């Protein structure tokens, strides 16, 4: 037991990675059962992540060194900076890993029924497991080149998953090629920026780079590359054109995981800005850049969403708009980072709102995409004009949809309200105009979800959907779990903020803690 806990960081990566390549072999023997096998693997991974989370939140950061004599030994005697690949998992990393673990587990459970009728499901699960592995890697690693490798794995596997249905028609392949080009460019430019770091400081360990950081011209170049490329990968507005295509064309279970992948890129952006640069950069300027990106994403995302007719495309535009909230909250925190008084009075609160919104968005956006998938599963269409009266036949899905829509619109007993309220309150103290825009966006969000509710669920029962039934149990299970977590988070936001979100925010802000856990007392 103790050994499992000690090696949990490696196992979280190794287990899905091994399972990814075992799955096709198992599929040769028993094709029907591999979906259960994959769900079980994700279940164990979730358990490991929870164990790790318990340990980190009570005892502090875990350092895991690969290939060292001891797992916790970052600096072998005589070295001044670490040379091995290190996993450095602090409260922020484990926060993201928890999201990934929950979302990928539920996506796998949902896929049991959703992907039943497709051929090549073994390859689908291989790619899903690889995608989850890559996300864990991006979130747990303390080595910047290692981050690049997982970044590329995530783009390759998600592209293959987006184009999974392209044997029927061309659209998924069209969405996939856009995403492929975008993510290749971003990964290569990230590698270029990593090269800039390596050329100056001769190390790839993030904590070591952070401690050597001089903020020279080359560092500025690297910052610009990281900022634009990671914002592009997370779908912030001027670089958002791939998001609606990729999200709407991927199978629904994958869309949910793609949301988590975008957030992993967003996490990487925050990690690089806060842990690598922190106060060496001009925090006001970069903070405002994040805020402007955020406001643009919020506003353009939601206005584009209102006019959509395709249910998943509409929701995809909303995930751009929700990314805006996170950028806004964290951007305000960054803008006042160098000002301790403002940071204490509202900066930390704003960041808590932004970071809390990441997990809330993953939950309700996940739930909404799953309900969209349930509608597609039964009706075979994503066009809102062709749906109608489905509440008569699909009562559970309707209930889950209402929960998800209320949560994303920020209606009180659900989790979206909790994080949005924190963002409004704190951003208002920073700049009232930003808070007003955020509220306006929230209203438009509600409007577009009422539109879906009206055209898909309400109205008389349509002739062609007379025989439609509720979706199978595994899909209901996945949606029910997400709904329960959403309601729990909505009822006890104080607990979540205090025990999970606040430590994560402090882990981002406190750079010296990040570097000293690796470099010790030198």
């Amino acid at each position: 037991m103790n050994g499992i806990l000690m090696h949990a960081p490696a196992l979280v990566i190794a287990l899905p990675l091994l399972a990814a390549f075992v799955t096709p072999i198992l599929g040769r023997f028993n094709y029907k059962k591999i979906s259960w096998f994959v769900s079980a693997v994700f279940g164990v991974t979730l358990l490991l992540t929870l164990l790790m989370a318990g340990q980190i939140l009570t005892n502090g950061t875990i350092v895991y060194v690969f290939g060292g004599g001891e797992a916790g030994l970052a600096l072998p005697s005589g070295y001044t900076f670490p040379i091995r690949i290190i996993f450095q998992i602090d409260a922020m990393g484990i926060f993201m890993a928890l999201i990934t673990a929950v979302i990928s587990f539920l996506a796998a459970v949902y896929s049991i029924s959703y992907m039943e009728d497709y051929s090549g499901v073994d390859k689908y699960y291989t790619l899903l497991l690889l995608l989850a592995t890559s996300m864990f890697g991006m979130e747990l690693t303390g080595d910047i080149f290692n981050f690049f490798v997982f970044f590329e794995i995530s783009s390759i596997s998600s592209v293959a998953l987006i184009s999974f249905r392209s044997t029927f028609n061309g659209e998924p392949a069209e969405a996939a090629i856009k995403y492929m080009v975008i993510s290749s460019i971003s990964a290569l430019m990230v590698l270029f920026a990593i090269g800039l770091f390596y050329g100056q400081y001769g190390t790839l360990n993030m904590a070591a780079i952070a401690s050597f950081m001089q903020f020279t011209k080359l560092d500025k170049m690297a910052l610009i590359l990281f900022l634009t490329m990671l914002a592009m990968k997370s779908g912030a507005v001027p670089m958002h054109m791939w998001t609606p295509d990729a999200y709407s064309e991927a199978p629904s279970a994958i869309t949910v995981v793609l949301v988590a992948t975008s957030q992993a890129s967003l996490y990487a952006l925050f990690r690089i800005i806060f842990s690598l640069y922190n106060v060496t950069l001009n925090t006001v300027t970069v903070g405002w850049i994040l805020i402007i990106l955020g406001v643009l994403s919020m506003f353009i995302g939601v206005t584009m969403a209102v006019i959509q007719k395709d249910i998943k495309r509409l929701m995809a535009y909303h995930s751009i708009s929700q990314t805006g909230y996170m950028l806004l909250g964290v951007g305000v925190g960054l803008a006042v980072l160098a000002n301790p008084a403002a940071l204490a009075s509202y900066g930390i609160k704003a960041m808590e709102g932004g970071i809390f919104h990441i997990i809330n968005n993953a939950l309700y956006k996940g739930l909404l995409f799953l309900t969209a998938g349930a509608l597609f599963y039964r009706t075979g269409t994503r066009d809102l004009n062709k749906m109608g009266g489905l509440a008569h036949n699909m009562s559970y899905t309707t209930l889950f949809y209402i929960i998800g829509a209320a949560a994303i619109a920020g209606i009180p007993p659900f989790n979206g309200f909790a994080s949005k309220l924190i963002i409004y309150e704190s951003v208002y103290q920073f700049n009232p105009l930003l808070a007003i825009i955020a509220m306006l966006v929230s209203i438009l969000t509600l409007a577009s979800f009422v539109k879906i509710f009206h055209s898909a669920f309400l109205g008389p029962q349509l002739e062609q959907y007379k025989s439609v039934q509720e979706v199978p149990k595994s899909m209901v299970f996945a949606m029910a779990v997400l709904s329960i977590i959403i309601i729990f988070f909505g009822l006890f936001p104080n607990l979540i903020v205090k025990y999970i979100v606040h430590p994560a925010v402090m882990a981002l802000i406190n750079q010296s803690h990040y570097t000293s856990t690796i470099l010790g007392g030198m």
Partner: protein
Amino acid sequence: MIGNFPFVAVIMLIALGMYSLMFKKNLIKIAIGLTLLEGGVNLFLITLGYRKGGVAPIYTMAPEGVKMVLPTPQALCLTSIVIGVATTALVLSIAMILYKQYGTIETDEIRRLRG
């Protein structure tokens, strides 16, 4: 001065790659653009590790007192090349599917997703 030529080549490769990614409409040319970009970044990494007159960093039978080139960028570059092969293969295979479904590989004609 002449030591900086590799960096000039890096910039040129990346600029050419970006040019073909932005202005070319043919998917094969876009794939070539990605490869150029990748070549530029790989050359950058290799150049970072190069020391003038250095030998390969193998300690067995190494001559005394001779500088060695840095091994880390070579390892990075190797990883990056392997990933690049996978990326190129994926781009080309998606281009093939697109050609089957749309009958063209010009991006301005592959436009069913919009709005």
